[in-house]
């Protein structure tokens, strides 16, 4: 026993000594490393493999231009992530030959790397040069560049790419085309009524540049759809239709042509808020980057089939930009519409974007309807119908804030723009909402986020709050999990709930599963009858092949104390 104790004591002493030595080495390690770095300060330059030489050497695209000398160290990293080092054996003006330390290393063309050059080789350059005093009246200032001897028009297709040459104008280029096609199938089943809904959608986008040799672009977007509701309590209903989202030809508006024209069906250029137009639009960019323009034509109703023929529109806009970067812009537009020959809506729309690289980013838009004395229920004059302002900022990707304020009410319009609403609804309804969100990265894997919103409308008020924790690389690489708690005091319910999401992505596929639970209290009902619980399950899977093919499938079910509903969705998409 005593011997055993002694052995354990010696072993403990050994561990203590070893631990102390480890701490000492760990403590002193950085000091030695720092000292070594101070002795051999280096500059690092990115390089690339430009040739593979027989015998194991590779050529890199740097040489004496960055003070490389024989014996300098180069570290390569292949696309698969493997790292190889090597030493410079020969140096040229703009290339060097490197022999990898590992003779088995495979370094394909374009492999990246870094060459380590002692900083002392650049010290002589750092010494300030003595300024040369020149009398401008005595010595003429030479031109920045000798005058070009060749005219732009002398360019031919066989000239070198880097020559100062005249780019081909859009109308001189060969025609090319592209687009995408997609299909969507979405069935839904509801246990409450026994109704099932079926949606089939097939659509696509197509564009062709310079189709007529005049430099313009032809664009056609559309979708064919069929929906059918099978209803046990009434006759089945369904419909089929073709929706044309866009069919337009646009020319100009390039760096060579400041005027831009568009004919056909298109979203109002520069001001999509004003909706689709079946007609013609023109705009012009000024020397200072500002632009102005207008459009006239039919005004398709913004429903599922975009029916045109009842409405006409005339609109004009002016776009202001602070500078060439266009990070601060403002647009003001005016739109006038007619419905079945009667004057309908006069609206002013303003939009502002402030998107600096650093700092707060702001976006806002404002709609002001202008009513006249004949507009029943509205006093003549301006009335704000939409106001929206959002501001966001993040600090070094460590934490951020996001705020939104919105206000909306129905405008008084003749055309079928909104779901059938009673006149009283149009006059009374309004809602406004303010929300503030914040997030903070707790460490490399965890992120905490929270959101708080409050709202009020013509009848009620309420708010919502949600707190969530995200974790990346949860149960494996390329995965993400989220746990969220939320509460909402809504129009008809007070609810509390939680949501858990887990998903993985990478390798051209992604999937996730979601479970959500909420306890709901219907407002206005007796307290013994107002509660019910809801569960929601969702699973999604997406697959992408060669980046131009994608396929996704989704299954989602919600079930409560009283009913259940199921949604399935399939979508495939191909770009060409």
């Amino acid at each position, binding site marked *: 026993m005593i011997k055993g104790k002694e052995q354990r004591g010696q072993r403990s002493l050994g561990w203590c000594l070893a631990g102390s030595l480890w701490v000492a080495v760990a403590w002193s390690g950085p000091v030695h490393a720092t000292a070594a770095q101070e002795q051999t300060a280096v500059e690092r330059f990115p390089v690339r493999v430009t040739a593979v030489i027989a015998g194991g050497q590779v050529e890199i695209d740097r040489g004496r231009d960055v003070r490389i000398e024989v014996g300098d160290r180069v570290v390569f990293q292949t696309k698969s992530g493997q790292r190889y080092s090597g030493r410079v054996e020969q140096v040229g003006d703009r290339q060097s030959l490197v022999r990898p330390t590992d003779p088995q290393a495979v370094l394909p063309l374009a492999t990246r790397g870094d060459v380590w050059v002692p900083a002392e080789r650049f010290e002589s350059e750092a010494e300030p040069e003595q300024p040369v005093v020149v009398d401008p009246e005595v010595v003429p200032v030479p031109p920045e560049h000798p005058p070009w001897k060749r005219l732009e028009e002398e360019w031919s297709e066989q000239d070198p790419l880097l020559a100062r040459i005249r780019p081909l104008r859009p109308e001189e280029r060969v025609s090319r085309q592209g687009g995408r096609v997609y299909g969507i199938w979405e069935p839904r089943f509801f246990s409450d009524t026994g109704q099932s809904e079926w949606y089939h959608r097939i659509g696509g986008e197509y564009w062709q540049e310079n189709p007529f040799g005049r430099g313009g672009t032809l664009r056609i977007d559309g979708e064919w759809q069929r929906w059918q509701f099978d209803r046990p309590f009434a006759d089945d209903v369904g419909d089929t239709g073709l929706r044309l989202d866009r069919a337009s030809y646009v020319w100009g508006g390039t760096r060579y042509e400041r005027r831009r024209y568009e004919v056909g069906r298109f979203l109002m250029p520069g001001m999509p808020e004003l909706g689709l137009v079946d007609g013609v639009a023109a705009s012009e960019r000024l020397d200072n980057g500002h632009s102005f323009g207008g459009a006239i034509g039919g005004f398709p109703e913004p429903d599922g089939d975009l029916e045109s023929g009842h409405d006409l529109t005339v609109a004009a806009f002016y776009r202001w930009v602070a500078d060439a970067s266009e990070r601060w812009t403002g647009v003001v537009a005016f739109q006038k519409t007619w419905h079945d020959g009667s004057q309908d809506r006069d609206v002013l729309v303003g939009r502002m974007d402030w998107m600096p690289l650093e700092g707060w980013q702001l976006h806002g838009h404002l709609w002001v309807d202008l009513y006249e004395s004949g507009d029943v229920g509205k006093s003549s004059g301006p009335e704000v119908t939409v106001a929206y302002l959002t501001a966001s900022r993040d600090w070094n990707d460590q934490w951020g804030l996001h705020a939104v304020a919105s206000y909306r009410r129905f405008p008084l319009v003749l055309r079928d723009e909104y*779901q059938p609403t009673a006149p009283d609804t149009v006059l009374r309804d309004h809602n406004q909402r303010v929300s503030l969100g914040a997030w903070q990265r707790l460490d490399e894997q965890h992120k905490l986020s929270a959101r708080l919103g409050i709202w009020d409308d013509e009848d009620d008020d309420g708010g919502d709050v949600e707190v969530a924790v995200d974790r990346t690389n949860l149960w494996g690489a390329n995965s993400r999990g989220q746990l969220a708690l939320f509460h909402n005091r809504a129009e008809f319910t007070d609810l509390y709930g939680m949501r858990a999401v887990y998903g993985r992505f990478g390798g051209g596929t992604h999937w996730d599963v979601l479970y959500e639970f909420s306890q709901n209290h219907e407002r206005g009902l007796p307290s013994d009858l107002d509660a019910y619980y809801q569960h929601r399950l969702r699973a999604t899977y997406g697959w992408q092949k060669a980046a131009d093919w994608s396929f996704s499938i989704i299954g989602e079910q919600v079930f409560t104390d009283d009913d259940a509903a199921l949604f399935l969705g399939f979508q495939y998409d191909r770009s060409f």
Partner: protein
Amino acid sequence: MAAKTLNRTTATLLRRLRHPLAVVIGGYLILAACMNLAPPDARQHGWWKGLGPVMPHDTFPADCSLCHVGSDWQTLRDDFVFDHEAETGYALDGAHGAAQCLLCHNDRGPVETFAARSCAGCHEDVHQGFLGPNCVECHTEVSWRPFGQVERHFATRFPLIGAHAMASCRSCHLGAEAGRFQPVDTACVSCHQGELARTANPPHLGLGWVDRCDRCHVQTNWNQARVVPE
């Protein structure tokens, strides 16, 4: 008007068909055929002399053969790759990774200007400003199929409960198929006018029960009221 005429023609044809499902399947087959007929020369870095010279190469590697074949400046190597993130600091994820270079680098002007406007620099806002400027709240770069609409509705005054969570967006928002999400009045009868009119036991219309459905019903069950009004 052409679309309207085509709509009517298609609808008439389908009404006369006994099996609309066959038409749907046929449509999908046609779509699949179209996909297989997509132009083969749609390579991401596709380039040919008819397009003329491209942007300055000042910062490119000194060895032209990394990208070009032989002495032909107009043809790129088959194995040409360009690490957009490393070279420009701007990663091309998802579908952007396969987009043709000229979709962004083209005659409109400096691409930096358009990139500064975020998604709206290149993609038209088909939602016409109604859903805000932050596209990535609902879309990813892999697919334009939106995600998380039910979760996002929890941040409104009308969270989607029961069947509402599974209903198609177009059931409430006219024009949702075309990307237009019109504001909707949250009163039940705004969407459930049909149910109100059909209900015969008890006859709601006859009894004057034409609004405030929430006094008797919860959102998960129309067929059975939780409270019977006196």
